[in-house]
């Protein structure tokens, strides 16, 4: 029986209410000392899982969130045996305890912002052409033209980045005083100005939602996507790393890169 893990919870007893998980199997709690891992069993023959199962996974985690502090597992974390599962919990026990304490009574809110990138760029380009620059050109040449074009791109991009930072600071300001922690991802695409995650105390949820209402109603040319409350996906910090996933181990990294290019990993050393 394969074991599918949904999350780590601050509860080591039996779960009273029945919750249904993947493949319509019941969830149960596996204890380790004073914490638990919530799991369900997968059929042995299961070879593939469609990505819409992620919604079932999420449903379980959010159901748990009502009664417990949950550290949600990444989707599709599966173990061969219960012994494997327990050795994992043993390995990360300190990390799990720390995170459960830190995230007790907290929820995550997400906000994505789209800004009019094209309009902003046009404006920057206009300003650029009206300003004098360090490339004075007495005689033109292919090299000079090349440099001029590169320089223009460089300045425009720089201005674009600075404008993005200014805009993000204004938006973030609405939530700064309410959120305990935050993770901001800037310019994931040119138009997606911000992908923000905020860690908020459960008791301040409404305050946070109100802050979003204020932001939404403030005059701007920004588009917003607001979501939450979520389990605290973005605020889990694990300090322990098994050596096989050491991204800063050059040899290991090189093997992974070569594997990406289609080389079979026949040896451990390059």
């Amino acid at each position, binding site marked *: 029986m394969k074991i599918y893990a949904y999350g780590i919870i601050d509860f080591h007893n039996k779960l009273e209410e029945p919750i249904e998980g993947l493949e319509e199997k019941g969830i149960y709690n596996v204890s380790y000392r004073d914490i638990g891992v919530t799991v369900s069993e997968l059929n042995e023959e299961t070879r593939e899982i469609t990505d819409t199962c992620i919604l079932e996974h999420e449903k379980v985690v959010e159901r748990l969130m009502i009664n417990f502090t949950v550290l949600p*597992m990444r989707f599709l974390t599966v173990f061969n045996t219960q012994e494997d599962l327990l050795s994992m919990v043993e390995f*990360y026990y300190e990390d799990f305890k720390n995170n459960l304490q830190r995230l007790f009574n907290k929820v995550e809110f997400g906000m994505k912002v789209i800004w009019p990138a094209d309009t902003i760029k046009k404006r920057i380009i206009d300003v650029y052409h009206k300003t004098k620059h360090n490339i004075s050109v007495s005689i033109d040449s292919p090299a000079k033209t090349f440099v001029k074009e590169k320089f223009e791109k460089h300045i425009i991009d720089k201005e674009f980045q600075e404008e993005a930072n200014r805009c993000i600071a204004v938006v973030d300001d609405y939530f700064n005083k309410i959120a305990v922690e935050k993770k901001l991802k800037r310019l994931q695409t040119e138009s997606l100005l911000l992908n923000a995650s905020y860690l908020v105390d459960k008791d301040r949820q409404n305050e946070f939602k109100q802050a979003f209402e204020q932001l939404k109603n403030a005059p701007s040319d920004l588009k917003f996507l607001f979501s939450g409350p979520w389990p605290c996906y973005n605020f889990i910090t694990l300090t322990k790393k098994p050596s096989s996933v050491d991204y800063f181990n050059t040899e290991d990294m090189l093997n992974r890169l070569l594997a990406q290019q289609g080389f079979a990993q026949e040896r451990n050393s390059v």
Partner: protein
Amino acid sequence: MDRQIKTLQDKNSYLDLHRQERVTLLEVLDRALDKGVVISGDIVISVADVDLVYLGLKVLLSSVETMERLRGAPMAGAQEEPT
């Protein structure tokens, strides 16, 4: 000895979803696909980002070998049949 469970992105059924459902799925994917408790190592037999394979199939594949073979096949809109 295959230990991997693969994740399939069923693009056809994804496109069938209403906009709101698509937004929901994308938001959930944005979090659960590679955030949360992310652990790797020999005892975890499946992680979500390994071998994300795009297939327009609704048929359950029975072996990992078939998947390996199909990975070399052209994609992007083409309907694939397992051989």
